[in-house]
């Protein structure tokens, strides 16, 4: 069984603590400094990762003799946010994933970031599980900044995900947890899957298999590697963004993210007041629709989907 530890605590004004907890699993015999961190809940409205943490914990409880190294599970980083359906850090309205590496000498969100880093640094690998926000549904994917492509893509390929998206890094992403950890030498993968405020069981089990496989291959678990799917690689094609051209209600024409042909209708934007259909969102390329809008209200510009087309 894992040991629950508190790794960061700050007194809140009225008789409570903000705290970050982890559940640590270690091998039955022998010390190991080899460590992996499974992280979730940096955004308080993203819950898919909590289910993966549960599934992993359940598996490790049942298989203690298979553990070869230290496995830390952190399901709830922005614990205040998680319990109040708040994406950012409550009170401060600050996106925790834009404040790394943080600082002890700054406001609460920066101190939390600093606490997270000091708890996890020294890990060989970290897996940071995000859902999308409440607006978008995503197929299981790993996003990697181009500068880290070489080290991270081989790891991501072991995670049983559908898509590896290597993107051009924007400066602002330098303030993310993943960037801070990668800079400190922890190979950190960012998983995005599902949708905010919801829980997709199938995706949870898919990623659990991926994490078990990665831990088997990287020497954290004494089990045979699993037979996992090989993800589509983004460097073989292009990503097309579908933005709403009109404000209105987006009604998807397809149920989930899936393969789509060029010219087919992704959804319509309608006006509930007049009953008019304002626009049809058409796939500009064929490929895999890996992002689809889940929240129907759109403004001009709202993202309604992303397609990865293998042929470009």
């Amino acid at each position, binding site marked *: 069984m894992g040991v629950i530890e508190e790794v960061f605590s*700050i*007194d*809140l*004004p*009225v*008789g409570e603590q*903000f705290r970050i907890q982890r559940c640590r699993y270690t091998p039955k015999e022998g010390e190991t400094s080899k460590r992996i961190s499974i992280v979730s809940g940096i955004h308080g409205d993203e819950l898919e990762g909590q289910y993966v943490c549960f599934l992993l914990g359940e598996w490790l409880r049942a298989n203690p003799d298979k553990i070869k190294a230290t496995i830390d599970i952190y399901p709830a980083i922005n614990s205040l946010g998680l319990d109040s359906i708040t*994406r*950012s850090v409550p*009170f*401060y*309205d*600050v996106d925790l994933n*834009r404040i790394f590496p943080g600082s*002890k*000498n*700054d*406001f*609460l969100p920066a*101190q939390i970031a600093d606490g997270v880093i000091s708890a996890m640094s020294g890990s060989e690998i970290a897996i940071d599980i995000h859902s999308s*926000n409440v*607006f978008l549904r995503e197929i299981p994917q790993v996003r990697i900044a181009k500068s880290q492509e070489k080290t991270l893509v081989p790891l991501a390929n072991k995670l049983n995900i559908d898509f590896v998206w290597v993107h051009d890094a*924007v*400066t*602002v992403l*330098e*303030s993310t947890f993943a960037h801070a950890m990668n800079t400190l030498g922890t190979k950190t993968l960012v998983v995005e899957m599902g949708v905010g405020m919801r829980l997709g069981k199938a995706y949870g089990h898919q990623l659990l298999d991926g994490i078990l496989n990665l831990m088997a291959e990287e020497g954290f678990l004494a089990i045979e590697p699993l037979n996992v799917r090989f993800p589509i690689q983004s460097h073989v094609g292009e990503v097309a*963004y579908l*933005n709403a051209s*009109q*404000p*209105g*209600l987006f009604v998807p024409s397809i149920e989930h993210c899936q393969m789509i042909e060029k010219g087919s209708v992704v959804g319509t934007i309608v*006006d509930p007041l007049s009953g008019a259909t304002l626009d049809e969102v058409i796939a500009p390329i064929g490929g895999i629709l890996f992002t689809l809008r889940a929240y129907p*209200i*759109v*403004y*001009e*510009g*709202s*993202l309604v989907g992303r397609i990865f087309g293998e042929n470009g």
Partner: protein
Amino acid sequence: MKRLEILNFKSPNRAPLKVEGFLFGEESKGPSIAIVGAMSGDHINQLYVASRLVDYLRQKEEEGKIIGKILVIPAVNTYALNMGETFWPLDKTDINMMFPGYAQGETTQRIAAKLFQSLQGFDYGIILEGRRDQGMCLPYVKIIKSGYEDIESARDLGMRFIHYRPYSPIETVMLQYNWQLWETKALSIVFGKNGAINNTTSSEVHEALVRLMTKRGMLDLPMFEGYSSNIIQPEYITVLKASRAGIFDSVVSCGATVEKGDILGRITDALSGEKLEKIVAPIGGVLTCQYASPLIFQNSIAFRIASVEK
């Protein structure tokens, strides 16, 4: 005065978002300046200073005192202002994190793109900013080292402090940095407490703006000299943290000169009333910033002191 429509953005259900600018004078006669007010819904003092400035400039224009071109955009995120939100009400994104904007991108990127387009070509640019934390501070000039910054125009504001520091990565998507990159001498004036109006502070910022416009040849007015600004680099700021959480009260105000050993604030236990901590100045200087909420978290920054020596 010309009232310009900077952008007009339709909403699915509410009235369109209209961002308006107020334009004074002519470019051909002198230099130009653009002033941007509330980009967030809680920047009320910034809105107040900007709208008061519009009224002031309208009078000065009638008196024939305007030489250059002056654009004031009092509010950008009117949707948030109208409903007590801080950020864009639908997706909670911060417009001041979307620069230089992207016309084919997401909603707030499109808003930023339109706004940024209307801010091009000005000689000077001023952003009226609120704080990003629970603090309250002496009005100060914030200027980041992008390689394009202009300290001299910052000095002409005659404000007491200029905080001059390297930029952090997130500032590369903010207006000041991008505006500088596009060759406008851009700076920010940070002031006030979010969600509130303070008259003394507002007057001070108003006066500084008028002073800069006078000194840089956009207004023809007699004007008092301001401060000879102190340029403060981060290492001259002492941060005082609350080691305990609870009810916070401050016994000094921003702008006060404090001596080493002075008691600045107290923290009491919110439930038992037990006196937990006195916050004492470890160094002499000017109190530039204080925590502005009655409930304080452990390790929150309670005060900042700017000093001459480290």
